[in-house]
């Protein structure tokens, strides 16, 4: 046994390594990024694990599926919204099933600390009919990930490990096994019908997946991560990390009956025993009211009163914490020190001093002055901060790549000027296809690609389409070379850059302007 201090993310990564991982793939996204980065550091030292950032989550998922197909163990990591991108591969991988152990570690962001929504990935696990683990602490992150691999191979399906921000980015000591499991040998799946989802094969495969469901339920029922403790007449169902919030507020000899859930599907028998035992049950979930809704059904539960996010005891949206759970349990507030009632001026994140995006936006803002109230479509990255004062240069941010396609749609609807601002990595992730469409459709758009040579927001990971690669892609997609411009966003070039923007704004038809200068943070880190 060893002991290591690990973030929840890192504990998942180490669990995978100790489970005999062969390959890890992913796309950076808070709060999931550190899973990959941790394994990557180990991989670099050991040399026998493959760690690759992919261009997007779908590609990452398919690469992991390929490793699984080859009989070896794979981990694929992403944030919750990344799973939307990977959903096609994800859903169908449940139908093909896994050969080598395939684990998807997905980090949800309740409270939207660094995200545009707080969707709950447990619905995806249920949607795909696969098991899902939800750790309550760092130790469980490590243990569950190892168990997930065994389960994946025993049942022949992918398994999800669902994290939330607080567990992903919280650190504690983790006990580790002394004998990591060796990697699987290369043993490709040769069952063509299983892996070729023609309708005739897919129907068979889908039936096999459905027939596995009773076994999934049995596993959940017997899981050491689903713990039922019957005491008094007040009940709690605590999913994942929320168990800690409940226990934090209770003395050791409390009289609440608690069902802790860490493995899905929800174990029906344990749930029934709890509900039959108590008069009322409070459902704690750091995410959507997934279990609560299931429990309540359309007409409520005859036997016990169900409370939670849907009944107002807990807020419907946002992240839970010990205070909210305490209030939900009906316990009195804890006394605090008496201070003057002060509020602190808010301090939102900002672009770093000297950030290239600032110079790009200043030039773009000035170039756009010829229009009344121009709206600029943008995307996801550091440059999204350009929406805030003082720049207020962009006016949309929806999903990866949406800037280009939305600008094209707006242009087609007759909107002028249709400007999109997108980063180099976001362009590689989901912008290329949008640009190809816009070019094919001859949409009158101006695409600004802010090439800072890295994935900056998540910690300067390598970008798949920067510098010459980016230029070749853009030209290869068919942009008219006369309307492919490259500028250097520095203060002394301001007037020139404004002129370039103006010229392209006047052009009827698609144009691409690459604003290229390295991220300051990247230069610092990679010095």
């Amino acid at each position, binding site marked *: 046994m060893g002991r290591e201090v690990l973030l929840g993310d890192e504990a998942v990564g180490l669990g995978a390594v100790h489970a005999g991982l062969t390959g890890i793939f992913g796309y950076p996204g*808070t*709060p999931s*990024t550190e899973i990959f980065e941790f394994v990557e550091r180990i991989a670099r030292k050991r040399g026998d694990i493959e760690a690759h950032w992919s261009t997007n989550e779908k590609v990452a998922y398919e690469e992991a599926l390929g490793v699984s197909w080859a009989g070896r163990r794979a981990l694929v990591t992403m944030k919750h919204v990344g799973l939307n991108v990977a959903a096609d591969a994800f859903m169908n991988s449940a139908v093909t099933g896994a050969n080598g152990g395939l684990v998807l570690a997905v980090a949800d962001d309740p409270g939207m600390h660094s995200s545009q929504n707080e969707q709950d990935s447990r619905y995806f696990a249920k949607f795909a009919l696969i098991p899902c683990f939800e750790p309550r602490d760092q130790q469980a992150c490590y243990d569950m990930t190892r168990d997930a691999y065994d389960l994946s191979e025993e049942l022949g399906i992918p398994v999800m490990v669902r994290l939330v921000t607080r567990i992903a980015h919280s650190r504690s000591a983790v006990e580790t096994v002394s004998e990591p499991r060796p990697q699987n040998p290369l043993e490709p799946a040769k069952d063509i019908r299983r892996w070729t989802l023609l309708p005739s094969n897919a129907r068979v495969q889908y039936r096999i997946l459905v027939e596995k469901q009773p076994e999934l339920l049995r596993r959940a029922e017997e899981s050491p991560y689903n713990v039922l403790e019957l005491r008094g007449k007040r009940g709690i169902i605590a999913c994942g990390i929320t168990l800690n919030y409940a226990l934090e507020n209770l003395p050791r000899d409390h009289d609440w009956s608690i069902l802790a859930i860490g493995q899905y599907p929800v174990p029906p028998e344990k749930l029934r025993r709890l509900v039959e035992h108590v008069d009322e049950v409070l459902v704690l979930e750091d995410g959507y009211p997934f279990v609560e809704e299931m429990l309540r059904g359309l007409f409520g539960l005859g036997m016990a009163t169900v409370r939670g996010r849907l009944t107002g005891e807990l807020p419907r949206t946002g992240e839970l914490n010990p205070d909210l759970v305490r209030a939900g349990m009906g316990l009195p507030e804890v006394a605090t020190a008496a*201070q003057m009632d002060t*509020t*602190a001026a808010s*301090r939102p994140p900002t*672009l770093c001093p000297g950030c290239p995006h600032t110079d790009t936006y200043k030039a773009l803002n000035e170039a756009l002055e010829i229009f009344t109230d121009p709206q600029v479509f943008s995307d996801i990255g550091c440059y999204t*901060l350009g929406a805030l004062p003082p720049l207020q240069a962009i006016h949309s941010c929806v999903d990866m790549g949406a800037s280009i396609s939305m600008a094209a749609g707006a242009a087609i609807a007759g909107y002028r000027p249709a400007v999109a601002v997108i980063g180099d990595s976001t362009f590689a992730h989901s912008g290329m296809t949008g640009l190809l469409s816009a070019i094919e459709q001859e949409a009158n758009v101006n695409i600004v690609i802010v090439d800072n040579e890295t994935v900056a927001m998540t910690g300067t990971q390598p970008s798949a389409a920067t510098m010459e690669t980016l230029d070749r892609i853009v030209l290869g997609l068919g942009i008219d070379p006369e309307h492919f411009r490259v500028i250097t966003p520095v203060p002394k070039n301001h007037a020139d850059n404004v002129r370039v923007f103006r010229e392209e704004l006047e052009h009827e038809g698609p144009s691409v302007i690459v604003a290229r200068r390295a991220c300051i943070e990247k230069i610092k880190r990679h010095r």
Partner: protein
Amino acid sequence: MEKNLILAGVGGQGILSIAFVIDNAALDAGYQFKQAEVHGMSQRGGAVQSHLRYADHPIHSDLIPTGRVDMVLSVEPLEVLRYWKTLSPEGWVVSSITPYINIPDYPDMDELLTQLVSFPSVVLVDAGKIAQAAGNLRAQNMATLGAASPLLDFDDEQLLKYVRVLFGAKGEKIVAVNEKAYRYGKAAGQFFRGLIEAGIAPLDAVWLTRRMDPATIDPAQAGRWARLASDKDALAAILEAGSDLDAARVGVPG
């Protein structure tokens, strides 16, 4: 035993470095710990915070409940106001008074200080000045940690061991600077508390501590300074004798 800290600051000020030092000291001392941190968007110059808990028994929640916070340890004075309502009635505020101004509506410094000293259990040090004296402005985090250290459950060596681990890769010089910042910060914090305990008005204590040379400030002298400072005219005369404090220090009353 259980200690719950909120580490506060602005993205880039290195509060995770403070966390690293305390985490490992706690682990060495045989405590359990949990420490929740903020990654991602707010690290770009936004308000950041870390909940750090250690105890001699298992810890449940990664987040500290309101009313159970023992200390708000802040590398930046404005950031204190964001979290101090969660302090327990016995809780402490330990903060640098060096402002990090990257917002247009940053409050007036005098008003901010007046607010901070209204809280009785407070330790305030000028981490910017201390770090500069130690040799690097970036060491403000370690200066603030030093100021907080007497209220933690470790001796200097237990903490400094991990200051060395943390900065080891950056070379001996950086290690030395950060160790110095820690020690200066500790001395300044103790000096400040010494003044308060000797009955000096808190704002005067801030003012006097700030004017001391971080390299030579001596907590043992706090009582004498306090006696002197209670006589405003005498103090002003001494401090005026030389605009620089070393000259003034010559006149430390015996």
